[in-house]
């Protein structure tokens, strides 16, 4: 074989391999960046609603019976969630993580987080349900001194932890392990309406 032709094939082959490897790397990087932005946006949506709700626990209702239920995976509270929403009554809101797997995403770790909102609690049929996919959701409660409250009436601080993962894996390893982008939020909120 002609030496020049052989050399050309070798160099051309190396170039082709290099371009393919580069293309693969760029593709993975793009998928990871896109996944991370979508996941952060997903968490941001949940957090916006959650913060609004937490800051309004007991609003227009009072301190003594703000909470209906307070557990580490769910809580139900009374409070006026939106001003001027046409309702004179208080709202009833529930946040609860279920053990149900979220089948709307391909992520096998995603669980369903449900927010149930009822503007007119006397009519249960008016409940509106919102569903979010999260990896983890935990709630802790504290009294005014930062201790675990003895009863629900003592709750002043609510600490919520939310962990979300991307709907799709950003990388699948050779052994089949799928990597998902994770975004996390944890905050202890002092509900203004529970202080005094």
């Amino acid at each position: 074989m002609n030496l020049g032709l052989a050399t050309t094939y070798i160099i051309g082959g190396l170039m082709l391999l290099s371009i393919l490897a580069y293309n693969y790397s760029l593709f993975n990087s793009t998928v990871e960046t896109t996944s991370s932005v979508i996941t952060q946006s997903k968490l941001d949506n949940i957090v916006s609603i959650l913060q609004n709700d937490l800051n309004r626990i007991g609003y227009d209702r009072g301190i003594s019976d703000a909470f209906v239920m307070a557990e580490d995976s769910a809580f139900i509270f009374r409070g006026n969630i939106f001003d001027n929403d046409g309702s004179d009554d208080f709202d009833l809101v529930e946040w609860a993580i279920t053990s149900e797997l979220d089948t709307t995403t391909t992520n096998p770790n995603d669980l369903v987080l449900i927010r149930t909102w009822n503007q007119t609690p006397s009519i249960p049929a008016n409940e509106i349900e919102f569903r979010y996919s999260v990896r983890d959701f935990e709630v802790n409660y504290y009294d005014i001194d930062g201790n675990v409250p003895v009863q629900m009436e003592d709750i002043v601080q609510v600490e919520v932890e939310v962990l979300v993962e991307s709907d799709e894996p950003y990388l699948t390893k050779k052994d089949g392990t799928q990597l998902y982008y994770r975004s996390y939020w944890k905050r202890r909120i002092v509900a203004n309406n529970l202080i005094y």
Partner: protein
Amino acid sequence: MNDYSDVLYLTAAMVIYSFLTINTSRSFLSTSETVIRSDVEYRTIIRAQDVIEQVKLVQRADENMLNPNHIDYMFAGYPITDNETYGYNDEYTDTFIIDASSEYIDEGDPLVRRYKVTVNVINEEVDPSTEVDLIFIKSFER
């Protein structure tokens, strides 16, 4: 190869191609770093907000907790280092250096006393570290 000019052309092409790939990779690395930093900054801001939330809890009777010269001063032991674990199995850890101070704002108003609370949180999980400053004005009615 017919002559050495082909070799020179090929070399030049490979050098240009290398520059292009390196610059594109740098750009993507920079984007990834920005995304990660934004997540870390997000958590750093939350830690600063947590300190402010504790200041919100201070009642009028406990005003001395914001007086730097009083024994009850709530930020006497600051700065503090706080490790926070998180994740489904607590598999991640963030280390925060939290500093806070308060300062009396003398407005000459006999009815209201205000304190300026400054919170500074540093997260050194990324290099360079992320730093957040939050200021909160706490008012006590006399």
